[in-house]
């Protein structure tokens, strides 16, 4: 019997699971995350998978990863580098060594570390014997063979052995982090509830992994991450795409409308379509269209007919929807367009993250074609911003583009579950049956919206369409002055939204040397970097924008409190350019990254320090 190892208390820890795309790393990662959430840790996750379903086994291209960051304090990113790396084969090790901290724990499946696998991974030297891993805690576990032995011992089908070896890994981690195995078992029972044989096999292997770790005492220490102190209530672990789908449903219920989603499958947005297609019990209709264009056009039709209409896509799909968005602008019908951004242009990097669609969202249409553009900034707040996007679309009778990204969509975090009664009210501006004063383009002066008259309502028959319409009456009009009025009114309607959105928040002091500006999904990394630097006593604040068009009405005031502004984004400077055009009186420095990867705390921190140091030397 092994002696009790030393338990080390950790503030936070980052674990990365990496293996072939068939190795079940996403599942083990989710299982470990849920277990951590269950015991009260804060967390943030990020899966990183190839765009091929089963890329060649054992190669770098086939490596699938899942990173989870758990903490005793608030966690805002999946972490720059891992404290623990699970590598199921040499390719997983090779692909991930640069994302691992010095001295990290490496758990490797030694059964796959042979010449055949080294060759596939492109290793010239045996990494276990060339001193390249000196200084790391390397746990060489015979995961494949011990899993097979376990399966054999229980008299189960050997064919499932290779599908359960991820549970051997999970067992080792449960021991390493002093986790209750029962939570892992419950996860497996839920996951494979219709397949009792699989539950039995997985649980057996989970225990085998735990016992192995305990018996041979793989490390002399184990870790413990305490629950977050002030966190209590009902929580769940939620991904950005799931939160987006649910936020839309919440808005529909609040508005007394039923949801219609017209979409074409596209990575990384498909989960929104998949999730909503499971929720017909809430009245949601999902229409899997023949293409992206039919996706938005069916949504426009559903909106005309009185539904809360949504279309979800990624950058290439947004390009195809341009004309449809213009039609929604012209017909002034409410519709939410969710763009889960990925690396571009063209097909680009389908499974990787980027913020390259901002200009497309703002300007990518013919004519003067304004719509509301906003962005979610964490996986969980996709719920709030999807809800808000729907509210603004409906109440202001306009298309809204909600920008998410691959990082938010697939990443997850712990979310305190709200009550519907606590969410804002939504009041669709319906026209009244038989209103003798109804005109299709008569407006409410408060928001400049027209009124929503739906087919089936008596006394309101009217026609809308893509041709320019006369102010108020909605007749087709080619009158020059009318066009000027209508173009300006459509823009004014969108600008008026600034009166209905919150002021831009500053995190940190309202005045200082440097304001770090970001938008959307880079929130967590910028927040952590700025906090670290503020702890050093330097005068840095941050402003993360969720509302882009229109900008919050205090934006000028926010920017004017600082000597320098640094705009960080995952593109070549699209938001910086937009700010220059909207608020040209300020100087904007930029930090840009386009590697298909999220921002890392370390690189933002380094950039901030550079900017601050250059300011000091200028003085």
């Amino acid at each position: 019997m092994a002696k009790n190892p030393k338990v080390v208390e950790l503030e936070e820890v980052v674990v990365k699971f990496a293996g072939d795309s068939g190795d079940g790393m996403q599942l083990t990662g989710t299982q470990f995350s849920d277990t951590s959430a269950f015991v009260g840790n804060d967390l943030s996750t990020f899966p990183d998978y190839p765009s091929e379903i089963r890329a060649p086994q054992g190669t770098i291209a086939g490596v699938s990863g899942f990173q989870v960051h758990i903490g005793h304090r608030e966690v805002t990113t999946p972490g720059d580098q891992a404290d623990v790396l699970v590598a199921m084969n040499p390719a997983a090790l090779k692909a991930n060594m640069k994302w691992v901290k010095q001295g990290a724990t490496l758990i490797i499946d030694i059964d796959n570390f042979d010449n055949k696998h080294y060759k596939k991974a492109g290793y010239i030297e045996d990494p276990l014997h060339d001193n390249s891993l000196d200084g790391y805690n390397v746990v060489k576990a015979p995961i494949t063979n011990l899993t097979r032995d376990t399966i054999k011992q229980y008299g189960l089908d050997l064919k499932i052995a290779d599908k359960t070896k991820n549970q051997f890994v999970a067992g080792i981690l449960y021991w390493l982090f002093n986790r209750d195995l029962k939570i892992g078992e419950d996860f497996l029972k839920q996951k494979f509830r219709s397949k009792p044989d699989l539950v039995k096999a997985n649980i057996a292997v989970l225990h085998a992994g735990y016992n192995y770790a305990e018996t041979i005492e793989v490390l002399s220490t184990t870790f413990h991450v305490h629950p977050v102190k002030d966190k209590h209530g009902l929580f769940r672990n939620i991904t950005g795409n799931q939160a987006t789908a649910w936020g839309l449903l919440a808005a529909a219920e609040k508005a007394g409308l039923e949801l219609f989603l017209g979409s074409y499958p596209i990575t990384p947005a498909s989960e929104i379509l998949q999730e909503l297609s499971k929720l017909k019990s809430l009245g949601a209709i999902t229409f899997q269209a023949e293409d992206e264009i039919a996706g938005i056009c069916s949504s426009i039709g559903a909106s005309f007919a009185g539904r809360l209409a949504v279309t979800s896509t990624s950058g290439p799909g947004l390009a195809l929807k341009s004309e449809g968005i213009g039609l929604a602008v012209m017909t002034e019908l409410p519709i939410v367009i969710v763009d889960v951004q990925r690396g571009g242009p063209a097909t680009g990097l389908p499974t990787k993250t980027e913020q390259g669609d901002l200009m497309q969202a703002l300007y990518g249409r013919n004519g003067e074609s304004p719509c509301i553009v906003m962005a979610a900034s964490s996986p969980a707040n996709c719920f709030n911003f999807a809800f808000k996007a729907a509210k603004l679309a409906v109440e202001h009778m306009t298309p809204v583009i909600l920008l998410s990204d691959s990082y938010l969509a697939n990443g997850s975090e712990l979310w305190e579950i709200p009550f519907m009664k606590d969410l804002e009210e939504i009041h669709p501006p319906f026209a009244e049956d038989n209103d003798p004063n109804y005109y299709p383009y008569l407006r409410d002066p408060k928001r400049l919206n027209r009124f929503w008259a739906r087919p089936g309502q008596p006394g309101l028959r009217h026609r809308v369409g893509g041709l320019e319409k006369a102010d108020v009456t909605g007749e087709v009009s080619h009158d020059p002055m009318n066009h000027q009025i209508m173009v300006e009114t459509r823009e004014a309607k969108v600008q008026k939204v600034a009166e209905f959105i919150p002021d831009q928040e500053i995190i940190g002091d309202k005045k200082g040397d440097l304001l770090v500006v970001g938008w959307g999904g880079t929130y967590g990394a910028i927040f952590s970097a700025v906090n670290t630097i503020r702890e050093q006593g330097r005068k840095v604040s941050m402003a993360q924008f969720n509302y882009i068009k229109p900008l919050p009405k205090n934006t000028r005031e926010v920017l004017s409190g600082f000597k320098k502004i640094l705009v960080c984004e995952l593109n070549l400077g699209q938001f910086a350019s937009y700010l220059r055009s909207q608020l040209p009186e300020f100087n904007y420095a930029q930090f840009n990254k386009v590697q298909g990867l999220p921002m890392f705390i370390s690189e933002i921190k380094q950039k901030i320090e550079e900017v601050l140091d250059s300011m000091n030397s200028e003085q």
Partner: protein
Amino acid sequence: MEDSMASTVLTRDDFKLGEPVKWCPGCGAHAVLATIMNVLPETGVRKEDVVFVSGIGCSSRFPYYINTYGFHGLHGRAPAIASGIKAANPNLSVWIVTGDGDSMAIGGNHFIHIIRRNINVNILLFNNKIYGLTKGQYSPTTPKGSITKTSPDGTIENAFKPGELAMGAQGSFYARVVDTDPKMMKEVFAAAAQHQGTSVVEILQNCVIFANQVHNDITGKDVRDDNQIYLKHGEPMIFGKERNRGLRIRNNHLEVVTIGENGVTERDIMIHNALNPDDTAHYMLVRMTLPEFPVAMGVVRAVETTVYESLLYDQIKHAKSTSKIKKVDDLLRSGNVFQIDK
């Protein structure tokens, strides 16, 4: 889904709009509009439950000339817009107005997919075999060899037959009419409105400016009886000025025969079965071309099959009655949740 019944008797005046109709004088579209206004009161649908949806092109201005809810959409996209409308509210009576450029070229994809889904809408396909609104370029239905503005040496592309596309997409209803025969149009439009599923009515329509008399071989007063066959379900396929010519199948091919010649009697003539789920004969009828055959008119195919929105709402009803998730609050608390105590 049943269309709601009208509480008062409607007339064509209920659908008239004050707007001036801006089609060219002599355009075949005028006759279609007039016929539709005669048909709508007879469908039993409330006037506020009728929606006309169109794409882009001359015919697609239709919604501006009729007093119903109307949506003048994007080029080719009317079927997608209409699908959203119909799925959102199946009680509506939805009509799509489109042309040969709109539905066969830029909107070809949406055309076949709405038919494949069998959404209960009526498609009026104005086929004038030319691009009119853009002033005279050839379309996907322009006969091969035609001289147009973009084919000064004659087109080198094969022409689509809309009926073949409709059938290839597993269409449940396809009919063909000519714009010169209001009685035929009225009967066929009424049948299309009656049909549960996607009804495609191809209207051979004359463009007086850019393809004048393109259908003259079919519609000309002197030739129409010999060159058209007006198919009616359950009736023998007889045509001709003398009503003595007919169609029969020999060796798996259609042939034109004359009753009283070579021992042919009326009993040898094929009876039209529009309700036959097997579309083999319907294909043959759609493909008939001059001069060997008359051109098939009337309802070629009208097969009852499952309708998209009925299946959709059945699924919703089932989910509502069986799922534990009745409200969004239930959803938010479903699955793996963690109560974290102080």
